[in-house]
Structure formats: C-alpha cells, structure tokens
C-alpha cells in the first residue's frame, strides 16, 4: 500500500527509471507486497514463471520474511523464500516509501555487481522449491489429522442436490 506513494509525485521512483509494467512478460522485478495467502502464492508462482529471465524478486514487508503479524494464520505462508527465490527483502510492516526506493537502488547495484542472481537458484534447486510449493498447495490430507466429518457430509449432500 506504500507502493503508490513511492511511485507518485512525492517520491517518484520513475526518476531512477523504475516504472510499473502491466504484465509479467514485461517486468524485471516481481514485487511481492506483503503477506502471501495460499491462493495468492499459487498466482505468484505462475506469474514468476511467466517472467522472462533475468528476473528478480523483491519481497516487501515483514510478512514475507517470517509471516509478520500473520505468522500464525492458517492461510498465509510464513517465508516466501521457501517457495520462490527472493533477491532482496524490505523489512517493516509496511515499509516506508524511502525503504522501497532504497531497496530498489540496492537491487540495481546488486544486479550491476552480479550479486543478484536468485533466478538461477530457482533453476538449480527447482525440486526443492517445487516440493515446498506442492506441499502447501496440493494438500490431500488434513494437516491436523482430523477428518472434517460434518463438512464431508455436507458436501455429499450438496452433490446430491
């Protein structure tokens, strides 16, 4: 949510040549702004995989590092780096626009010095990431080991109707 101010008149990241692009095809940097719910994670992975190389990920906010304030929520992941490779993270909830600009500039420097190459890691360790993704996205058994009795019955009845 601090992204709009960062892009607009007061901070204006465009002066560093950074601008928003409409689609993943045109983008260099994927900004994951804040908490990532399971449903979003799935879309983020697709978006990330659609981006052409070289590509970088900027994780934005504490929530992407360790879940932040939502660390014990049943629907948000706690560490984004387990699912896609993150180049740089900005801490804070929400980080200030200055922090975003600083991160972008650091990322630029890292790219120039060749430090930021997390997308290569994704290729090399694809199995690791894939396994983590599948574990959270394609559950088939309840995590807590209980059978949701009522729910199943309910669903069966739904199907009959």
């Amino acid at each position, binding site marked *: 949510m601090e992204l709009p101010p960062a892009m607009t008149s007061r901070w204006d990241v465009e002066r560093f040549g950074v601008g928003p692009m409409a*689609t*993943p*095809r045109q983008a260099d940097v994927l900004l994951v702004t804040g908490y990532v719910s399971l449903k979003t994670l*799935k*879309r*983020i992975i*697709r*978006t990330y995989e*659609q981006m*052409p190389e070289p590509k970088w990920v900027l994780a934005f906010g504490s929530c992407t590092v360790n879940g932040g304030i939502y660390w014990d929520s049943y629907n948000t992941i706690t560490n984004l780096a387990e699912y896609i490779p993150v180049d740089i993270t900005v801490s804070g909830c929400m980080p200030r626009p200055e922090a975003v600009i600083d991160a972008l500039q650091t990322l630029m420097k890292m790219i120039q010095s060749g430090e930021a190459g997390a997308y290569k890691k994704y290729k090399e360790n694809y199995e690791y990431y894939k396994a983590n993704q599948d574990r959270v996205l394609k559950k088939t058994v309840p995590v807590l080991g209980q059978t949701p009795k009522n729910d199943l019955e309910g669903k069966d009845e739904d199907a009959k109707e």
Partner: protein
Amino acid sequence: MIELLLVPLITTLVLAFFIRYKRITWTLFLAANGFVLYKLYSIYGIWNLSYKVDTAYKILGAELTLGVSNNPIGWYFAFFSALITLLISLFSIGFNKNSRSNVSVIWMLIIFSNLGIFFAQDWVTFFMMWELMGWTSFFAITNGKDKALDGAKYYLALSLFGAALMLIAISVLAQYTGTFQIFASAYGLLQIINSSTKLGIGILLLFLTTFLIKSAIFPFYMWPQKVYSEGPEDYITFMSSVMIKYGIYPMAIFIVPVVGSADLPMILNTGNVLQYTIGYLGAISAILGTILAIFQTDMKKLFAYSSVANMGYILLGFSSMTIVGFEGSLFHVVNHMILKAAIFLTLAAVVFRTGESEMHKLGGLVYRMPLTFMTFLLGIIAAAGIPPLNGFGSKWMIIQALMSKRMVVFAIAMIFASTGAFMYLFRALASIFLGQLPDRYKDVKEVPPTMAIPMFIMMVIMLLTGVVPGVVMKPLTSALKAVGYNVEVASWTTLEGSLKNSVIDLKIVFYMFVAGVIISALMYFFGNKSEKVPQNDNYTAGEYPEEWGVDADRFNYSYAFYQPFKEMFEPLLESVSIDGFFASIGRNFEFLSSTIQGLFKRGEGAVLLFSIGVLLLILGGLII
C-alpha cells in the same frame, strides 16, 4: 481464331465421354488448357483476327452475324482469367480427390464460355456465352451440396432477371442502330444519346443493371454471400476471382466509352450525371461491402463482401473517366483476380482440412498449416493494398485519378474502404490462423502438394505483379493503345499517376521495404535469444485457466470481433434496412426461381425460357 474456342468445346465433349476415368480426363484437361494458354499468348498483338458466321437472318432490322474476334481488352481479360482459372482448376484436382464427381467437365465448359464472353464480337454471341456461364455456374454451385441450392437459386433468379433486361436492351439497341456488333453499337448508342437523351440513357441503364448484377455491385450486392457461404469452395474461388469480373468487361468496352464521350448534363464541372451515378454506385458498394464484411462471422461471407467492395473500387476508377483511373480499374481487375484467388484457395484449404468456415470456431492454424498461412498473409497484404504486393498499384492509380478530378467524396470513400479492409482482413487472419489452436484441430495437416503448388504459384504471382507491375501493365497499356486510347506503354516497374510529380517506382518501394526489414532484422538478431513457450502459456492475470475450465477454444477472442464498431452502425443499418429490403426481394426471386426450377425439372424450362426470350425480342420490336 475459332480454334481457340473449338478446342475447349470439343474437349468438353470428350471429357464428358471419359468422365469415369479421372486420370485421363485431367490429362486431357491440362493439355487443352496448355493449348489455350499458348494460343492466347501467341495471338497477342494480332488484333485483326476474327471468325464470323453470317446467318443471313435479319432481326429487328439488324443483320444477325455471329462471331468472335480478338479485341485487345478482351484479350487482356481472357488471358489473365484463363491463367487464374487454370490454377484454380489445378487446385480443384486435389480438392475433389475424395469426391466421386468429376469436375473437369465443368471446368472445361467454364473455360470455354470464359473465352466466348471475352472474344464475343456481337451481342448475341455475348448473350449466349453469358447465359451458358450462368447455367454452368448454377450447376457447379449446386454440385453435391443440397444446402447450396438456396443461394444458387437466388443467383439464378437474379441473373435471369439481368439476362431479360439485357435481351430487351440488345433488341432495342439493334433496332435503333441496325447492328448487333458490340463496338459498332457503342457508336450508335452515342448518337442515340445525343439525339434522344432519355432513350439512350434508358438503354444504357438496362445494360448497366445487367452488368451490375453480374458484378455484385450495389444494389445487387447480396448474391455473393448467399452463394459463397454454401457453394463448393473451389468453384466459388473461380466465381469470386474471375466470374465477378464479367460485368466489368462489358462496362469497360461499352459503358465507359459511351458515358465518357456522351454529352450529358454536368455536375460540379468534373463529370456528367451518369459518371456520378456510376461513381456513387461504386462508392456505396465499396463502403457498404467493407462495413458488412467487417461484421461477418463466416469467412466465406466476409470475403464475398470484400469482393463487393473491390468491385466498388473498380467502378470508382471508371467513374473518374480519366485514362489513369481507367487503367487503374483494369489493373485492379487482374490484381483482384489474383489476390482473391489466392485468398479463396487458402480458405478452401482450411475448409478442406477442418470442415469449418465459421471463423470463431477456428484458430491457431498457423501451427499446422504454415504454407497456407503464408499464402493467406500475402493475399491479405495485397488485398489491403499495401506495397510491395499487388493491389497497391491499382488502388493508388484509382485514388490518384479521383483526386486529380477533384472527386472528393469518392476519394474519401475509397480511403474509407481500403482502411476498413484492414479491419476485416486482419480479423480473418487473426481468427483463422492466429490465436489458440483448439484441441480438435491438433491433428490437422498441411494440404497435399496438388493444392499447395497452385497456392505457392499464387504467392509468386502476387509478389511479381506487385514489384513488377509491368507484367500486367504492359499488355494492358498496349491493349488500350490498340483500342485507340491516348496512352504510353507502361514501363516494367513504374506507375504514373495523373497529378504533378506522381510517378512511383515500385521497385524502389520494394528495395526500401527490404532495407527496412534488413535493419529491423539486424536489430532482432542483435537482441538476446528468445525462448519458445507453449501456446497456452499466456498472461491470464496470474490465474490458471485450466482450473476455471477454460481450454484453448474458450480463450480466443474472435466472435463479434468489432462489436463496439458494429454497435455504432446498428441504428443506421436498422433504420435504412437495406438488407431487409433486399432480403424480401430475394425471397420473391427465390419463389420465382423455384417455379422456374419446377418447370425446368419437367423439361419444359428450356423451351419456356427460349420462348420468353423470343417474346421479349418481338415485344421490344413492336413497342419501338
């Protein structure tokens, strides 16, 4: 001279005899065609050839002499139409491979009547050949397809109507001028107009209506889409590229000279009344054809309307009554013949492989039929009038002519139509060949060589006539010169407009284009390499389409392609309701035609038709 007609006629009979042996018939067919083309080529420039039969009859005070002669404009039409017809019929071999019927007879008959029309020396021969062509096409359209009957009947009724008008016109003209000879009667008509304007214009309009019907010009623009939508694809290729020009030829040799030199009331000191009438008909056809083509969902109907629009261009060229416009129109006749044949052949190929002509049900065929795609691409670039392919030169000449005569409205109509052409042409390209390939067409293959070769030749011809327009322009200008127009014989690559400093060298345009593409390609290769991804890997706002039950079929934007644009025209089209009006006329014609067909089935039709003709002749004579 006569052998040019006799050979096809005899071959037709022989082919009918051997109809069961496809191999033999096609060999014979090719041989006969080879002879025809050779013969046509060899009689180029020998304009005094003719063959006459003096019947010694005297009808309506005019001597009835049947005959054929080699006239320059006729040769121009005949040569190129024979060439294109040959290519189409070659394609037809492959296209009809699996069907039982043998189409070679019909093709031979068509070539015969084709030559007959273009070389006819007198109106009676012309009329006979004209009718022969009409009936042949009726059978060819209905060949094997029941659904096609409706359209065919509509077409038949319309052309019978036209034929009746022409018969009246011929008889009246013969009575007044005392001759059936086409060229002689043109001078006669000119004198009639100068003495009795109303009568002259009346006769002229009767002729004009007939030709308009044949060439599907407003207000008779409905038949192509009716016929094409269900007719056999190989035959409608011929119809749309060659047969639709039959109305243009008599206009070029008969109407335009008469209107151009007649002393009629002038409008805006740029042209006379009839000239403007022709111009407006052309402009309306061009605009209406374009707009209607934009709204079609069936690809064959789309290109049917596109043909209407192109006939409109040709009329606009005529209406300028300048030599550049006239040349441009006749040049466009051939260009349109070539590019329409190319386009319709690819459509036939698509239908041949998929059995589908609704555009929104197709898609992504470029993956499976690259050659067809390339032919189609070149075809639509040509049809859109983009250099360096053909179609540009002729359009450019027509626009130049219109501008030099200050015919502002017509020039704007021309630009509207040719820009609108992008819309429908691209829509066809995108919907048929680009986009997502539906699963059910996963196994579609490229067409067999017998069909691919004609398409390839078409591509070459399009590029050749685009870069070296002299191939067509040289014979055309020498023909015009031979007829008596004041023209220079064109050079190989340059075209000359009528405005100041308007000479374009298509060779340079081509070089420029190549240069541009080379620079651009350098840029392309300079960039980092690209990675090929499967068709379904698309930007979907991050969603997984398959999880929402969306397959390739449901991820194609092709139905109602120009919906917003269409909504702009909806009130207009509804209020004017031209379509509705003509649909009702069409229904009446269908009723008429089914009556006629009923008679025909009982074997009385031919007799009846003949008697009607004779009756009309006599009546015409009595009235006058």
